[in-house]
């Protein structure tokens, strides 16, 4: 036994890893002509490798979920199972019924267009690229914990979020000198760590935006460690537990709440008190919903967005344009399901009028 595996298992594993590595294409050169240095312009295969015959393997390297083709019929409450919410059951589920509530905004959902397939044209777009911000403000990138995934500037202060694991995930700020880790006031009973019951920021903190009223908003889906009983003292793979939402007036001190929804995008309304979030269900396909909150603590579902996962949100007055990704699914010979490479993009418009 070495490195936790028997000799035979190690050999089997090494054969696979060696085979995967051996398929590597030629590495691009620094002084190559322009086309060689432009990402996303090549899809050629090594002819030697293509000539190798035999058992075709499909490795699905990521989410094992199934997505439907986009259809106007997807828009409607019958297509998704609502997740647990922190709010009373008075939250409405369709534009028609939303209007009856005195507290919730009226939301009209309109299918704008379906595009694609063009997987490279969409993605979760950061408001501003962190490295550009840091360079423009005279800061340096290297002293920061990596990866830093998003940044904002408030006055002379640069705020950066990121971290690649629980221990380093966090928020830093700088007034032009050294970077200081910001304090985050977590809700009572919430602990970020690896023990049973702890919360984990598995991918660091990705999202950071400056709200129209000057507040800073950061959020990140979180997981919860379900057990700490394993041979090496680490928690088991945790389950999704919602979204940690952090607010700050200045980037130095942050208060946090937890929403029981797996948000992929949040957009604040003009007065900073009205916000929308989106979640996704993973019961054979992905559907998304629009949520509303006055305080970023209690969330009310106000509309169904239909099939697809929210990639990006843009706000323009009373209108929010939502871009969703819908992936083609393929049933493999062994019955498993792979996503892609086919992909389309849906866009829907939310016309919002504040509740009376």
């Amino acid at each position, binding site marked *: 036994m070495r*490195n*936790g*595996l028997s000799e035979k*298992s190690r050999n*089997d594993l*090494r*054969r*696979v*890893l*060696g*085979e*995967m*590595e051996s*398929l*590597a*294409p030629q*590495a*691009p050169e*620094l*002084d190559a002509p*322009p086309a060689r*240095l*432009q*990402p996303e312009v*090549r*899809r050629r*295969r*090594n002819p030697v*490798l*293509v000539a*190798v*015959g*035999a*058992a075709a*393997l*499909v*490795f*699905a*390297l*990521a*989410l*094992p979920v199934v997505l439907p083709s986009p259809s106007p019929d997807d828009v409607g409450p019958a297509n998704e199972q609502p997740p647990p919410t922190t709010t009373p059951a008075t939250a409405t589920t369709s534009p028609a019924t939303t209007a009856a509530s005195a507290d919730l905004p009226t939301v009209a959902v309109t299918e704008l267009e379906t595009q694609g397939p063009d997987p490279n044209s969409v993605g*979760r777009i950061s408001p501003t690229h962190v*490295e550009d911000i840091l*360079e423009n403000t005279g800061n*340096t*990138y*290297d002293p920061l914990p*990596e*990866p830093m995934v998003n940044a904002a500037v408030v006055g002379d202060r640069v705020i950066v979020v990121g971290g690649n*694991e629980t*221990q*380093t995930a966090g928020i830093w700020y700088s007034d032009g000198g050294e970077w200081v880790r910001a304090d985050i006031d977590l809700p009572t009973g919430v602990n970020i760590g690896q023990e049973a019951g702890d919360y984990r920021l598995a*991918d660091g903190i990705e999202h950071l935006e400056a709200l129209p009223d000057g507040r800073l908003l950061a959020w990140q889906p979180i997981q919860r460690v379900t057990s700490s009983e*394993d041979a090496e003292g680490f928690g088991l*793979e945790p389950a999704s537990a919602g979204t940690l939402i952090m607010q700050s007036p200045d980037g130095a001190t942050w208060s946090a709440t937890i929403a029981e929804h797996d948000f992929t995008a949040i957009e604040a309304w003009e007065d900073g008190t009205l916000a929308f979030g989106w979640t996704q269900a993973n019961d054979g396909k992905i559907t998304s919903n629009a949520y509303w909150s006055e305080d970023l603590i209690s969330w009310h579902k106000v509309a169904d967005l239909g099939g697809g*996962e929210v990639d990006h949100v843009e706000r323009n007055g009373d209108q929010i344009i939502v871009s969703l990704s819908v*992936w083609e699914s393929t049933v493999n010979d062994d019955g498993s399901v792979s996503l892609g*490479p086919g*992909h389309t993009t849906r866009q829907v418009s939310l016309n919002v009028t504040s509740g009376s």
Partner: protein
Amino acid sequence: MVQPIWTLARDRGVEDAAIWRKHKEELIRYATVLVGVDHAEDVLSTVIERVLRRKGSLAMLGDARPYLFRAVLNESRGRLRRRQVVSWERDFAEDHIGFRPDVAVAVGSLPERQRAAVYLTYWRDLPVGEVADLMGCQPGTVKRYLHLSRSRLREVLEP
């Protein structure tokens, strides 16, 4: 005005070119394991672009190897996250004695950081400390990745 990428390459010193030449083969192999054959070259092209647009040269880093490995892992993870899925379709030779497709599928389905830890540990034979350095995390985190990945791989390796 943004300077075209190829002129950045032309203007960059010979030291950076030498550093890239020294590490590019192991980086493309690493990227291939992480994102598959069809996307590895794109990952490295993006990493090059970022390196060239970086203010300081690679030579100023002292040891650029960990920086480049982290850049490849971060870019790979970013692509997988943005696209939500990457299918790695590959043909393997029939005469690969002892090659186990079920293990290959299991390795391909590991989360990318776990797969990176498995590759660097079990194929490159690197110690945990060096793996942590290349992945930009603590040794304890590498051990956790290895523990989680072994738990999944044992289902096919040692049923």
